[in-house]
């Protein structure tokens, strides 16, 4: 944010359905460390929004505090953004969404922000099935405060000091599935092929969509001995390829041939999964937990779309709020006027 960016735009830069170039979806220049996984995630968000032809001003970006939480400054500069306080973004996002259900809400958080100080708010925003995309840029450490262990750090992984973690880690994806999340994906900042379609699917999902993105911290947690280093993640990544097909014609059912499975999203778009050997039902919580466990027990990390509940009730359905955003309700609609007050007074005599 501190420098001005060169506004030069290449003449034949591709444009999307709105006639916008990818540049329109960019943000300020990143101040993160060169090579930080978070920057790749920002790039993936930019691609996803560009390809989905989203109007930037229809997006609200929210975050907590941390290197990861700084990133909303580095994409979609045309969107309003709220960089709140540490671990409390979910509540701010909830309030924002209550006020205007028509915007697209993208939350960016870190593993410290979400799994430590923010765990309570995270669990409860999941429970409320708030209609938003919640991205955790998970590097297993506290980047901005110089590399302390986070609660997602794997048992046996060592930090930069060389201390080995003996606590059991919090697996945010499993936790979310357990607590009732309706869309849970996991990916890797280094795997654009998988990450971009996942982000598109998450945005298209109606309800709470968690993306737990392993995003290495090159400065404090990229050493040998760290399970969240680029190298180790590349080796242990059991990636389930994902395609996102923005559909025009109607599709209702979910089609599943042994190896590919097509999940029809709420807005008619389709997520296509290439499941390879992991034959489990991604619409069944228990089976999803089972699958994650299956690979974990082999020292692998399953990435892709892990679980989805396609027709869940998001918070506004549960509350039964009006279709029209609450922030558009007029004084006339909201204020009962003096007549009613007279009846109140009368009733209190």
């Amino acid at each position, binding site marked *: 944010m501190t420098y001005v960016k060169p506004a030069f735009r290449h003449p034949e830069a591709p444009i999307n359905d709105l006639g916008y170039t990818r540049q329109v979806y960019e943000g300020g220049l990143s101040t993160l460390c060169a090579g930080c996984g978070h920057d790749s995630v920002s790039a993936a968000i930019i691609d996803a929004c560009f390809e989905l032809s989203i109007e930037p001003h229809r997006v609200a970006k929210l975050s907590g505090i941390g290197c990861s939480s700084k990133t909303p400054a580095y994409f979609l500069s045309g969107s309003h953004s709220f960089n709140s306080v540490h671990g409390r973004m979910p509540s701010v996002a*909830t309030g924002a969404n209550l006020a205007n259900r028509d915007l697209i809400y993208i939350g960016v958080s870190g593993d410290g922000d979400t799994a430590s100080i923010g765990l309570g708010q995270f669990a409860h925003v999941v429970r409320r099935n708030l209609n938003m995309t919640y991205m955790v840029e998970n590097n297993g450490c506290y980047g901005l405060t110089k590399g302390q262990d986070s609660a997602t750090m794997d048992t046996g992984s060592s930090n930069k000091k060389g201390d080995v973690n003996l606590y059991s880690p919090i697996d945010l994806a499993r936790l979310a599935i357990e607590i009732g999340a309706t869309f849970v994906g996991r990916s890797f900042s280094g795997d654009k092929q998988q990450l971009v379609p996942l982000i598109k699917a998450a945005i298209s999902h109606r309800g709470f969509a968690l993306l737990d993105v392993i995003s290495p911290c090159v400065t404090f947690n990229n050493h040998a001995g760290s399970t969240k280093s680029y190298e180790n993640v590349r080796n242990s990544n059991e990636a389930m390829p994902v395609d996102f097909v923005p559909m025009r014609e109607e599709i209702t059912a979910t089609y599943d041939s042994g190896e590919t499975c097509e999940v029809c999203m709420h807005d008619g778009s389709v997520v296509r999964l290439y499941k390879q050997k992991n034959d489990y039902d991604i619409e069944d919580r228990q089976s999803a937990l089972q699958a994650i466990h299956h690979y974990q027990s082999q020292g692998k990390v399953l990435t892709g779309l892990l679980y989805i509940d396609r027709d869940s009730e998001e918070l506004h359905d549960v509350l039964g709020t009006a279709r029209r955003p609450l922030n558009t309700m007029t004084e006339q609609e909201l204020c009962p006027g003096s007549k009613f007050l007279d009846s109140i007074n009368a009733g209190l005599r």
Partner: protein
Amino acid sequence: MQVKQSVNDFVIKFANVNGTGSASANGMFAKAIFRMGIPVSPRNIFPSNIQGMPTWYEVRVSEDGYLGRRGGTDIMVCVNPQSMAKDVAEVEPGGYFVYDNTKPLDLRYVRDDIHYIGIPLTEICLREYTDARQRLLFKNVIYVGALAALLNMDFAVLKDLVGDQFKGKEKLITPNIYALELGYQYASNNFECPIGIRVESGRAVAKHIKDFDNILMDGNTAAALGAVYAGATVAAWYPITPSTSVVDAFDKYCRRLRIDPGTGKKNYAIVQAEDELSAMGMVIGANWNGARAFTATSGPGISLMSEFLGLAYFAEVPSVLIDVQRAGPSTGMPTRTQQSDILSAAYASHGDTKHVLLFPATPAECFSMTLESFDLAERLQTPIIIMSDLDLGMNEWMSPPLEFDDDFRYDRGKVLSGDDLEAMTERFGRYLDVDGDGIPYRTYPGAHPEKGAYFTRGTSRDEYAAYTEDGAAYVRNMDRLLKKFETAKSLVPAPKIKQAAIETRFGAVFFGTTASPAYEAIEILEKEGIDLDTMRIRSFPFNMDVEEFLKEHDRIFVVEQNRDGQMRRLLLNETYAPAKEKLVPILEYDGLPVTARKIATMIRNYITHGNVTPINRRRRAADAEEVVA
């Protein structure tokens, strides 16, 4: 023994066991006297417990319309053996002790300076009812019936009330009226009715109440209505006594007024958050996004919300917070009242912060100030904290009726619409002080396709909302926030100042629920030749009137319900007048609403022992009376 004679001027107290349904019967008793046109002020003194513990209901009847606690008890209606010893002792000489004489009275409780009225409540219930629950419930109705006879209450009024109370459950009306009659009969047959202490309708002067067009309601309900009228669409909260009923009432009225008959959809959203931090976060998020949102809490919630309050102050996000104060510190006494969150609210959060506070003193003000608070929050783009308390929030108060002017229009503050942005030629700067009042312009997310987007943050930023660590930019921003706070002084409600009939160097300052007993105390003292001008503070920051008042008096008694004289400290901190030696703390903080007698005594003692002698009294032209009583 002398018989206390008193018409329309006494204190009656009910000693019950909580969870036995006594509350509604006692409420009916108070309401009946109110309906008879006699000023009344009931107070629930209940434990932090759900069932089985001692609970009291104190009703003050005051023809003069004094609504604060007077102190002392003239009639004690004792239905709870647990607390009998304490209850007997509390009765003033010449007063009455009404009790259940099914079993003979323990001799230790017999005093020779009070009158005993025994009513065999248990016996009657055993005789009349078979069902245990009924025996429990009707016991309360029976003693109300007996009191009707003893105190000369209008029985017809009671009947009407039963009717109102059981609208919808009509079949309960007859048995309740029957129970009333049981009590009424027993009393009239066994005692000479009415007794010396009694009520008489049609003679009320109520000099403290503008006209007698008054209502009886609790402050929390009034505040909730204020939020409804202000167009609040989002309420996020976490349950905590004594604030819970604010959101309960908001919910109740929204269900009535805000559901689209066609679609059945709600034009509002109420979310019970997982804790107070989250509730405050939701309020901030919703206001940021252009909805009017509020929360209600009490002490512990204020502590937990302080990080978010700092964010809202610094990022300049409007928010409304209703603090229904209770006795602290920590969990303290959750069901007792206090005014002890003043400093924590005014300076909530680390760093240099200041927050706007409003101090309602009546249900009518709970309504009007809550209504007003949303305009203030949006005009000032900062949190507004309404400082109510348990006494005001949870008890029924006689109050001027709630008023709303249909010409009133919301002031949403400085918000640039899509069209404004479209029309704008200069660059939008979220934190630019365009008008020189310290208040910048904001935009709602989604307002305009190309313009107006900005980055909201709790970190330092420049006028265009860009992150900066530049000291000069930081200072400009902090100084603008100060200027904004100055601007606030011209927007918040001014204090109510009343001059004594006699010119005086003495002044008294108070606020909120301390006002009623304080005004009464001032009159008690006036009769003794001690005259004080009074100032009822209604908001922070303090405006020029406050400065003036401090300047113009050389002894000022600051009456408040906390240990540390928090309002006195705030006055020292936030006014220019060098008033330290002048400001005399008058403090009561035992958790029960302070009484007029106590205040009068403390001020009297200071003046007499501090041998500060009143100057010779010169009459002054009378000025408009303020109505809080």
